[in-house]
């Protein structure tokens, strides 16, 4: 029986790969779950687009402050040692390759590492991009955290993105409820598969060519 990961477990798997001392931006949606899964005792500094380094957990009820928000505009706190800066500096950190990791959600990722996560392209949809395109090109490593399949069962790993791109060839590693997959110049390499799922079955569900990582073969 295949043991799919739930969202918290995917977040924990992402967190495992983020080393001590990293500067990290967690995108809106699924990636925000990573914050609670970071191993205690590992000093990792969270960046928020709205001018915060050292983003802390949600405030206790009654302690919310309208001036202290995260990028999702939810009440937030600052950790000891954290600081504030204006938006141009915040995006200099992103674009200037100062962030070690950006963890982003995705609608689709292509075999070349193209990312689509901002717009479904539907004619009546109101487009909104936020900081996603800056994070996609700017972070030293772009990690994607997503469900492997859409609600209809279609693979979110695709030959070419059919949704509008956020960034071309920008994704380094993909974490899903089924597997961890590296994007390399010669295609997608499977790093981990959940228990009870064979490589062949993962390949069938994914619908794009996957390679076994040499060490995992």
């Amino acid at each position, binding site marked *: 029986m295949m043991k799919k990961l739930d969202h918290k477990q995917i977040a924990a798997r992402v967190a495992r790969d983020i080393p001590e001392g990293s500067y990290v931006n967690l995108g809106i949606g699924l990636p925000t779950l990573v914050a609670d899964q970071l191993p205690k005792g590992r000093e990792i500094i969270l960046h*928020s*687009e*709205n*001018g*915060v380094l050292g983003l802390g957990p949600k405030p206790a009820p009654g302690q*919310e*402050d*309208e*001036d*202290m*928000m995260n990028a999702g*505009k939810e*009440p*937030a706190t*600052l950790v000891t040692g954290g600081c*504030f*800066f*204006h*938006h*141009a500096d*915040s*995006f200099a950190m*992103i*674009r200037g390759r100062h962030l070690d990791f950006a963890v982003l959600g995705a609608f689709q990722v292509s075999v070349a590492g193209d990312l689509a996560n901002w*717009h479904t392209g539907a004619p*009546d*949809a*109101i*487009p*909104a*991009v*936020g*900081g*996603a*395109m*800056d994070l996609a*090109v*700017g972070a030293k490593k772009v990690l994607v955290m997503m469900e492997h399949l859409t609600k209809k069962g279609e693979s979110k790993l695709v030959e070419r993105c059919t949704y*509008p*791109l*956020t*960034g*071309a060839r920008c994704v380094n590693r993909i974490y899903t409820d089924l597997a961890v997959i590296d994007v390399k110049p010669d295609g997608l390499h499977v790093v981990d598969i959940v228990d009870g799922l064979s490589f062949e079955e993962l390949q069938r569900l994914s619908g794009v060519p996957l390679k076994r990582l040499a060490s995992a073969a």
Partner: protein
Amino acid sequence: MINKIVASPEAALADTPDGATIMIGGFGNAGMPAALIDALIAQGARELTIVNNNAGNADTGLAALIGAKRVRKILCSFPRQSDSWHFDRLYRAGEIELELVPQGTLAERIRAAGAGIGAFFTPTAYGTKLAEGKETRRIGDRDYVLEYPIHADYAIIKADRADRWGNLTYRLSARNFAPIMATAAKCTVVQVREIVELGTIDPEIVVTPGIFVKRVVKVVATLRKAA
């Protein structure tokens, strides 16, 4: 004697003409200059071009200005929110123009305007829909998109403390776009929680030097706790 302190938000924005381009500080409600926006609504200028990260939340502040049909065009990175119904309605009716700009490009275009930069190349959005029709260039081993500065007639922002020269400090994440917007407008108008004597603000911690500020208004109780 230099004195940039103005008696009221209404007085600070009385000269706003129709068709003005106005930058509004804030990221969602953090740093939104609510009293100045209310004064702008009361003042009556129309056909405005607004620069903000968002397109208003719920029924107050920027959302109210949009709801009152006073905005012809908005430049922002993230208009669609669960409570952006005033913008959504006018956008779907074709009554407001949207220029969608990636957040970092928005910030840098504002910064560039304030810093006298004519244009800049950024890697952001290369190869995407938001770079369609724009000039691109390969520099080294990367591809870049040419982006132009955004200048404004007015910037209306919220700060925490000011003195009569217009030196400003901010509070927590309410700083966001305000310091760069202050540099990019011909007339920067600031609402603050507190006005202090010259020399009270430690010169080492002034975030926006007064040279970027034209008018300062004290607004009581700008520190509203979130519900």
